[in-house]
C-alpha cells in the first residue's frame, strides 16, 4: 500500500513519531471517527475451536472459515484435491483483510503521532 521503504526510513530518521509495532496502538480506538467503529465479533465458539484443536495463533477472527475448511477436508478425506478451494479461498481472504486492517492501524497510529507532535510544537 505504498508504505514500504519510505515509512521505515522515516521511522528510522525520526524515531519519536514512529509507531511501535511490538505493542498495541496507544491512542483511543474511537478517536477521530465521525461515527463509532464497529466491534469485531468472534463467529466461532470456543467449544468449536477446542473440538477442532486450533492452535492459539489460529483462534482469531477468521477461525470460523478455518473450521469450515477443516470440516470440508474431513468430509472429502483422504484426497480432497480442489473440493475445498472455496473454503480455503474464504479463509485466505479473511486473513488478508485482517492483515490490511493491521496495516491501516499502523498508518492511523503514525498519523496520530504526527498530529500529536504538531500540536505539541504549535
Amino acid at each position, binding site marked *: 500500500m505504498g508504505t*514500504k*521503504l519510505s515509512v521505515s526510513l522515516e521511522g528510522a530518521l525520526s524515531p519519536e513519531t514512529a509507531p511501535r*509495532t511490538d505493542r498495541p496502538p496507544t491512542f483511543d480506538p474511537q478517536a477521530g471517527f465521525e461515527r463509532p*467503529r464497529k466491534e469485531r465479533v468472534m463467529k466461532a465458539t*470456543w467449544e468449536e475451536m477446542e473440538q477442532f484443536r486450533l492452535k*492459539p495463533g489460529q*483462534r*482469531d477472527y477468521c477461525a470460523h472459515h478455518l473450521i469450515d475448511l477443516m470440516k470440508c477436508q474431513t468430509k472429502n478425506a483422504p484426497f480432497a484435491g480442489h473440493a475445498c478451494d472455496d473454503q480455503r479461498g474464504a479463509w485466505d481472504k479473511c486473513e488478508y483483510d485482517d*492483515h490490511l486492517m493491521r496495516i491501516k492501524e499502523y498508518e492511523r497510529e503514525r498519523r496520530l503521532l504526527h498530529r500529536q507532535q504538531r500540536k505539541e510544537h504549535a
Partner: protein
Amino acid sequence: MNLAPPLRRVLAKRYLHLTLLGRNQRGPLTFDGWYPRDHKPGPYPENDEQRRAAATKYGIRPEDYKPMNKDDPIKYAGDYPDFGVVTFDHKDPYEDYSDRQMRRNWGEMVSIDMMRYRPDRLTFTGLNEEDYTYWGHFTIMARVLVPMLVLTYLFTQSDPNIFRWQNPAMPKQYPYDFARAFPFGDPRDYPIKNYSFDLE
C-alpha cells in the same frame, strides 16, 4: 619468456642439423604419441618423386605442395605440407561448406595449426599483453565486488527499524489475551475488545 616474435625465431633457428643423430628433435614427430599409424607424416621428401607421392597422399597439387622447413625446430613435421596461416576468418563466408561451423569441406586438407585457428577461439596469440593495465584489471573486479559488498551490507542490517521492505503493520488482533493466560490460565478470562474500520 615474453620474447618478441622475430627475436624468438632468430634464437630458435638451429644452426646445426642434429635431427639425423636422433637428438634435439622437436616438433610433432619427435614422440610416439597419439598418431594412428597411418596418420603419422612420412619423412621429409628429398627428390621430386617423393614430393609428388607426398602431394598425392595429401590430396593437393604437386605445384602447391610445400613441406615444412627442415630447419624449423618447432614446426618441422616431415612431409606434412605448409599452408601458412589459414583461419576461419580468412575463408569465404558465403561459400557452401559441408561443415559450416568450421568453414571446411569434407576431406579438405587442414594446416597443422588448425586447432590453434579454430573458429571458437577469441584470439590466436593469447591475451594481448600490451592491452593489459592494472587499473583495467581492478575495474573489472571492482564493478562486480563493490555492488556485491554494498548490497550484502544493506541486506544484513539487523536493526529492524531501518530498511524495512514490508508494509509495516501493528500486531495481530486476537479476541483473547493468550500471552497473559499462558501457561495455566484460561484465555476466556482475559477478553480483548477490538474494532474494525467499518463504521456503524
